[in-house]
């Protein structure tokens, strides 16, 4: 009897876990994620970079090399590039 009394808390926890699991499962079925539409734009002009650094590694002297960064407008207003100054 003492042995079963010791197992009682474990049994209760197991039952509670089962109930929670079933509840979560039902929630997933009855309440699918709502379609919130396209991500909302930030207020004003805003620019995001896909990546902002690049390593060419070894390059020969006296030659032209190039890399293209991509800028994305993530604001609700037109972003302007006022100027670009070489580093």
């Amino acid at each position, binding site marked *: 009897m003492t042995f079963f009394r010791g197992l009682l808390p474990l049994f209760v926890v197991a039952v509670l876990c089962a109930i929670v699991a079933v509840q979560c499962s039902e929630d997933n079925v009855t309440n699918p994620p709502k379609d919130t539409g396209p991500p909302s*734009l930030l207020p*004003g*002009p*805003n*620019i995001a*970079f896909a990546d*902002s*650094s*690049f*390593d*060419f*590694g*070894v*390059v*020969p*002297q*006296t*030659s*032209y*090399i*190039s*890399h*293209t*960064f*991509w*800028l*994305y*407008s*993530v*604001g*609700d*207003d*037109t*972003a*302007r*590039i*006022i*100027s*670009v*100054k*070489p*580093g």
Partner: protein
Amino acid sequence: MSVPLERDYIAPGDSLPLEIIFYSSRYTTRIYKAPAIYTNEDSVATIVRWVKLWATVCSTIDTIQPIRPEPSKVSFLYAYGSTIDSANITLRNVTDEDISFEIVDRPDLPIVFEVPSTIKANNLVTGFIKIDSDTAIAAFKKSFTLEFSDSAKSRLTIPLKCSNYVGTGGDVNLSECPGD
């Protein structure tokens, strides 16, 4: 360094390529560049954003690289109406282990880089770089960047230069870049 912009604005949801063209003439070592981009993102003050570039400029690439290209840079003379412009290229592995590579940056042009991507130890592979277009391509200065599988993850950039060339109808004149 030059930064030709196709336009100076980006509409909401749109994107803009920012191409950085770098001329390595004046340098002989590891360099770091950070072009500054000034934008109107703040209504009061101009916002400055930076992109960062690193390169190791070498007059003789074969002294430090586990993979040695031949040639180290390629120049096309593109003839209108020609359908094939290509240059052979060899990558030599001077280490005692097999090395593979992947292309981590390439021009946004119809250019094929066809070289076996695994180079056995102390061996070489040969392939070609080819302009794959039936129509004329304006002059360009571009490059391919390769990243190797060695422990240092070495990178190598192969410059490509194409000059408009209005030929007389003969063969395409193709040559290794003699040194700009």
